[in-house]
């Protein structure tokens, strides 16, 4: 498939998925009424307008943004590590971000609302950055990144995150416990406009800056010194990529909890369709990630309505078999 066509297809499919996500749920809303509310003509549709404005729309936007963030950050991280198995949740970035966020919840739990959420996001960002830096330092030598070290470092960080989490729970009171456990399950059901605002802010930064690193990422795939020989300021680019991907993963963990495999599966599917050129891979992954998570979340809400499945369960159900198939075919990737 030509890269341009794929990006167009995805860009056309995305609004349809957003609309479907707003329409479908425990109560099914008619498409025309939803459209009328979305364009601001909601006379006589008070109850429906309330559902759309306060529940479905913020949730659909949050879902789409988080999916896009996870996928584009996964794609960039795989380029940075020069390794197609680098995924935020596998290499401990998600776990690091979780620890950072839990610490903030427990020790600054009194701060609520927008400021509190910003603090949690900041904690997740710091935790995520520390994890990427640690994994990168451990796993990367002059000849590239060792998969074994990378995954082992991920396990170590995951274990550390688990024990820090348990320690925190030990010390937390009931209210904090509830928040931590809700938060750990992840999920997009806590969507509200202040979460959308925070994710939208970080997303705007990442979608503006990451695609501009596409040429550098392509050169980096050749190897670090090869990229340097092509005139790329490798150290600066690496620093930028680590900070951006940690911010993206951190904020998505902070608002939606740990959603696994989106960052791994989406860039892979896109690469199979159009190849590894980051100039197309990055935007196409962002669009496809938004679509995948919107579909998964809509399913999660519809399948067992009126209750819902955790969306992470669906992404893992989809992602784990895919990951196993990748492992089986790893020789094709030279791992």
């Amino acid at each position, binding site marked *: 498939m030509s890269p341009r066509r794929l990006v167009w297809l995805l860009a056309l499919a995305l609004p349809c998925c957003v609309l479907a996500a707003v329409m479908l749920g425990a109560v099914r809303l008619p498409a025309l009424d939803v459209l009328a509310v979305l364009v601001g003509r909601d006379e006589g549709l008070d109850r429906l307008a309330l559902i759309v404005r306060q529940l479905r729309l913020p949730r659909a936007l949050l879902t789409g943004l988080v999916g896009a963030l996870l996928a584009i950050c996964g794609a960039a991280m795989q380029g940075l590590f020069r390794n197609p198995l680098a995924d935020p949740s596998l290499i401990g970035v998600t776990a690091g971000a979780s620890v950072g966020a839990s610490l903030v919840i427990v020790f600054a739990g009194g701060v609520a609302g927008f400021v509190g959420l910003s603090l949690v996001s900041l904690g997740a960002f710091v935790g995520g950055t520390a994890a990427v830096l640690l994994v990168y330092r451990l796993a990367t030598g002059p000849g590239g990144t060792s998969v074994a070290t990378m995954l082992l470092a991920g396990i170590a960080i995951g274990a550390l995150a688990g024990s820090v989490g348990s320690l925190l729970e030990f010390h937390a009171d009931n209210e904090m416990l509830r928040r931590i456990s809700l938060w750990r399950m992840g999920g997009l059901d806590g969507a509200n406009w202040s979460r959308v605002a925070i994710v939208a802010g970080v997303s705007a930064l990442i979608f503006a800056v990451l695609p501009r690193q596409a040429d550098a990422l392509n*050169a980096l795939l050749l190897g670090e010194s090869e990229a340097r020989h092509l*005139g790329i300021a490798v150290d600066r680019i690496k620093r930028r990529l680590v900070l951006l991907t940690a911010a993206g993963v951190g904020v998505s963990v902070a608002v939606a909890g740990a959603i696994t495999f989106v960052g791994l599966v989406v860039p892979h599917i896109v690469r199979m369709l159009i190849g*590894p050129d980051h100039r197309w891979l990055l935007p196409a992954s962002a669009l496809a990630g938004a679509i995948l998570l919107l579909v998964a979340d809509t399913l999660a809400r519809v399948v067992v309505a009126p209750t819902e499945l955790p969306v992470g369960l669906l992404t893992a159900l989809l992602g784990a078999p895919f990951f196993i198939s990748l492992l089986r075919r790893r020789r094709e990737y030279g791992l």
Partner: protein
Amino acid sequence: MSERLLEVEGLALTAGGRTVVEAVEFVLAAGQHLAVIGPNGAGKSTLIHALIGDVAPAAGSIRLAGRALADWPARERACRVALLPQASALGFPFTVAEVVRLGRGPHASGSVADRDIVAQTLAACDIAHLRERAYTQLSGGEKQRVQLARVMSQIWRAEDAGDRLLLLDEPVAALDLGHQRLVMREVAALAARGVAVVSVLHDISLAARYADRMLALREGRTIAAGTPAEVVTAEGMQRLFDTRTRVIVHPDSQTPVVLHG
């Protein structure tokens, strides 16, 4: 064309606190090909990596077109100096044409010109028939030719940059006889268009056939330097490799040929 495109003076290089190269000197003019020979661990690769700025000199200087190598902005240097590494780590399925196009990265010559240059270098390395194949599925020799086409496209045109330098670290190690000859001829054609070449070669006879001058290194020190006929002698090979050889003259090219074994 520059008579003193690359000037190396009193160069010493260290790696991990150990002196790897010491007191190496040479001057290379545009269009000249210098072949560096020597036993394993002689410092050949370190030397060639120093010539692109990967390793900073511990003593002495490297000047490119009259300016110290370290003073060149990365982008400008990349338009003039390209290095073919011994091995490549590329593990993502770029097509062959995409890999070669990466060599055009430092230039802003436009996609039309770039496509043309990619086509020319693909033909020069005899890989035009592979252009849409995935790099990861190629054989070792094919990969090496793709990487060579990539670094050639980086310094292909005189209008991008006048003074150009091509560094080759064992460019023919994985190639069959036919492709060894093809690659060395294409490198010679590039040199004829004003590119200075520094290569590390293990096949002494091949080096003597295609290089204008040779530099023999052992434990980082210059054992011999000069024309192939001056450097490649039975006595010189004995000092360099501790092994007995016979050196005869090639009946066609009149260059020295090392017989061993």
